[in-house]
């Protein structure tokens, strides 16, 4: 029968080994050749876009990379998707929503009116474009315009 000492050794040993493997895998997945985070295309615009995304807690309604609040649409491939819906004017539509002084409420759900400047809206679009080019192990296909086709036009 298992003794308390053996049980403690199982806990401490198991924890140590799994933590070491976890750290090893973290280093592996960000190492050159294995990194698929689209880091090389990070521009100052994209970084500013991320800051705007965070400072307005956009994730509190939307989802991005599948993470967020499920109250407003997934934005991982939003530019491509709106390009299909608005005949190649996806970026313009996004910018006009972000710059609008009154709440956007397509289909009834209100979005906060952020009234952004042209520059800020461009930064957010650059951020979305950068997000859209990350290799997401297949999830990008689930939320891509190809998956949506044209039935929702």
């Amino acid at each position, binding site marked *: 029968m298992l003794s308390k000492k053996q049980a403690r050794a199982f806990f401490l040993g198991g924890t140590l080994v799994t933590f070491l493997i976890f750290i090893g895998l973290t280093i592996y997945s960000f190492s050159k050749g294995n990194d698929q985070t689209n880091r090389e295309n990070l521009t100052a615009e994209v970084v500013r876009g991320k800051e705007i995304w965070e400072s307005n807690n956009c994730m509190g309604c939307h989802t991005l990379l599948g993470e967020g609040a499920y109250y407003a649409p997934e934005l991982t491939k939003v530019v491509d998707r709106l390009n299909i819906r608005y005949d190649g004017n996806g970026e313009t539509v996004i910018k006009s929503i972000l710059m609008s002084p009154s709440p956007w409420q397509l289909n009834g759900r209100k979005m906060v009116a952020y009234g952004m400047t042209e520059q800020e809206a461009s930064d957010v679009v650059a951020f979305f474009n950068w997000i859209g080019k990350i290799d997401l192990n297949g999830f990008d296909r689930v939320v891509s315009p190809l998956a949506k086709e044209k039935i*929702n036009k």
Partner: protein
Amino acid sequence: MKYKSQKVAYWFFALSMLLLVLQITYGFVMGFARIGFDNLHEFVPFNVARAVHTNLLVVWLLSGFMGAAYYIIPEEAQRELVNVKLAYVQLISLALVGVTAIVGFHFNIWEGRKFLEIPRPLDYLVVVNVLLFLGLILTTLFKGKRQTTTALVLSMGLLFAALLYLPGMLPFDSQVTDSFFRWWVVHLWVEGVWELIMGGILSFLLIKLTGVDREVIEKWLYVIVGLTFLSGVLGTGHHYYYIGVNKIWLIVGGIFSALEPLAFLAMALFAVNMYRKGEKKHPNKLALYWTLGAAILSFVGAGLLGFAHTLPQTNIYTHGTLVTAMHGHLAFWGAYGMIVLAIISYSLPNMTGRKLYDSSRGRMAFWLANVGMLGMTVAFGVAGVAQVYLERKFKMDFMLVQKEIAIHFVVLVLCASIFATGIILYIIDFYKHGKPSDEALEINE
């Protein structure tokens, strides 16, 4: 209650109850908004309600864990808390930081990172607060007459929880890296070190309530927390499938997160077996209800419902849908909400001297809260599965799908009302116990 200083726990529990009520209130704001009654949008838009709801969850649970530690550690270490005044300072500063953060959310002051919305300057105050808490707890423990496994596991959980807050404060330019390390905090808290805290509290309660030999209980405690880390640490990989990191996580995350229910199953079996084995039948039936309920529902909510969408083949469709909300609600409630209510139910009569062990109000609170939460879980589940099929399989537009599933949120709000009634009854019971008193010291447990 054996030591006067244990009374400080009462005020942490009272803060917990207050924050829980607020959390539920903001939950209703979100529920109604999903049905279409978004009348508060000007003052409390959805992203504010959501940030308040999730952050209050974290703070009321942490306040409950801290209260549990202030109650358990002196009793386990067999000495008074080293400094009671500083414990009150820590309580007040925790409440102030929490309230400041929540008020700030209403004025667009936040970080906008899911679960970690508290703005950076307040993060530093959280660190100071937690360091003060750990200083008090660990000094008490190591100055004490004994260092039991229960106390060590509980303290280790609290210490690691503090350490793991730090990766969430690292700044990253990349959304992917940011998200990757955010999960070090969120996942390794809720599917790692918080389980140590839960295990420690559960072990303490089982020792007190069942009378089973401490050595037996603590041996199995090691096995359970061992299983937790063995599966949970590499199980973090299930958050990495589709956020833009290497495919290796599909394999590692898939295998290890599939093992995660084992730890919860072990915890449920452990609690039920100890109860059956126990010769001592403690009169505090309500504490027993909440204790066994926590062990069983954590297996259902965190273990089974987590497993339901943890494999990469399933998760590619459920990732970013309401299926996650289904799992999240029952997991947090079963594993952490209920264990906090269990330690409160156990300690309250001991701190106040009023032994309201088995009131009908207390039993109603237990059943209504649990039935309500199970109903909410089902509503989220049905809405989530419908969303997956309509949006991800039949390719309907997000907002059209939301309209189709709005009816499930009517059910959700109804079930949430049952849940809220249970919580209100629990709080009335809490209030009826009165304030903690030194006279309770003389009353034999």
